[in-house]
């Protein structure tokens, strides 16, 4: 193994602040406000390829169709298409470990969205699990207005 003589080598310590804002745009804003005010999860449909996207987008990137006004209400139930178990704690994480982060394809949608699954032992998680959205008591104007998903009983 190579060794390097690092004696008397100065290391500059620094820290930069990275503040930012993000303009969600009309489409993203409509999704969030509908979720917040009506507890409805909305997608948009591309009339060219028939796909229903959630989270919604202004343009179908494959067909280049403008789909911003093609809103469809989706079911609050869906299916886990993939998942991971988070097994470490960190202050940015939304739950204490271990917890499940899953890709959930809502009934009526063609694309999955990421969210937390609770109410099941992580060791028992399986792809194909049917889940249902549980809405948050308090709004934060974020995707966490869906608090989590839980298995359909």
């Amino acid at each position: 193994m190579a060794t390097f003589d690092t004696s008397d080598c100065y290391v500059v310590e620094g820290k930069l602040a990275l503040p930012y804002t993000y303009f969600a745009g009309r489409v993203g804003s409509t999704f969030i406000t509908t979720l917040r005010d009506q507890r409805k999860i909305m997608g948009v449909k591309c009339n060219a390829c028939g796909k229903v996207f959630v989270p919604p987008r202004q343009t179908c990137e494959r067909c280049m169709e403008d789909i911003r006004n093609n809103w469809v209400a989706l079911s609050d139930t869906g299916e886990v298409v993939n998942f991971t178990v988070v097994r470490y704690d960190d202050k940015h994480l939304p739950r204490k470990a271990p917890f499940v982060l899953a890709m959930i394809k809502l009934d009526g949608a063609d694309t999955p969205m990421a969210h937390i699954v609770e109410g099941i032992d992580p060791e028992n998680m399986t792809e194909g699990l049917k889940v249902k959205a549980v809405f948050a008591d308090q709004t934060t104007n974020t995707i966490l207005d869906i608090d989590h998903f839980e298995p359909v009983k």
Partner: protein
Amino acid sequence: MAYRKKNRNVGIVGIGETKFSSHREDVNQPEMIHEAVRQALDDAGLTMNDVDCVVHGNMELFEMVHQPDMWHTLGSGAFGRDSFRLTTGGTTGGTLAGAADNLVASGMYDVVMAIGFEKLQEGHTTGGITNMADPLWARKLQSGALTAQAAVKLITEFGEERARRAAMTYRIIMDKHACKNPNSHRAFGLEWDQMDDLMTTSPPLIGELRLIHMCSQSDGACVVIFASEEKAKQITDKPVWVRDHITVHREETLNLCNNYYPTETTHKFAAEQLYARNNITNPLEYFDVFEMYDPSAWWGLDWIRDFFLLEGDEHIKLVENHEIMMDGKMPINPSGGVIAANPIGATALVRVAEAAKQVRGNAGPHQIPRPVNHALASSFGGTMWTVLMMLEKELNW
């Protein structure tokens, strides 16, 4: 300098520009970019299926977005296509145009779309800019990106009264142009009788650099589509030909080669090289319009001399005599230039786009009132970097 003639000719066949603005809360990044993409495709009469490759650029870290080219696929049309991301600071837009030209000229692709964008109100430019300075030699010493260097230089050489009046004349001319350009972010309607007032009441930023002299922070996107000669002639009856382009970079902060090379600016060096290899002996006579990356009125005024290889006070006289106005001898920035709108990653591509529109003759209300056969577009970035591009109406050089 190693340089070879182009492998094949390349034409600009499509142009799209958003309206530039201080805030675009109504669209996210890919949505804003999509506006310019759609416009450029419509302008060319193409669909994304006709585009072989997408080059995408903006300022590094300005929106705090990682790999923005991939994220923006939702609006850029790059899905399933070859794509590159380029980021060269303020010159990004010029680099995008140069790269697109090279990619087509090489034979690698027939049709290349260049996308420049910025949403300056979303990010915090300090995060990106601060990283410019070397952590050991410069970061503890640096000031911001604003400088009154050009003001000091011009005042020293031409006296305070003349320099200040010339800079404000330049500024008012740019505003008069901006007022004709529907895409301008800032167009105030300044009048000549406001000159003395502005020189004393506009808030000073640094020394004689005042707020009124300086460019804005803008949101916006620009898209330019480049095609091989064969394709370009099929796509449009008004292709604008990219004759040549040159890039000159020099780092002038403490870490590299300060004071080691002569103090000639990269603008002048680039201009000399570009004109020499294209046999242009009198650029002021040759070009019909110049779209300059002019971040402030002081810089714009000072740089005219470098770009046209002028002597003494010839550049000051051009401004004093309003020869840089739309109907003057050398119209500069009929678009209103960078002081009118500065979405940085798009800004230099806007210079190319606006120059090309002038050549086509369909720039809109800010079209200059005589035929444009030869156009020049510049980019500026960093501590002193230049990209310079020449556009032509005819394939006859």
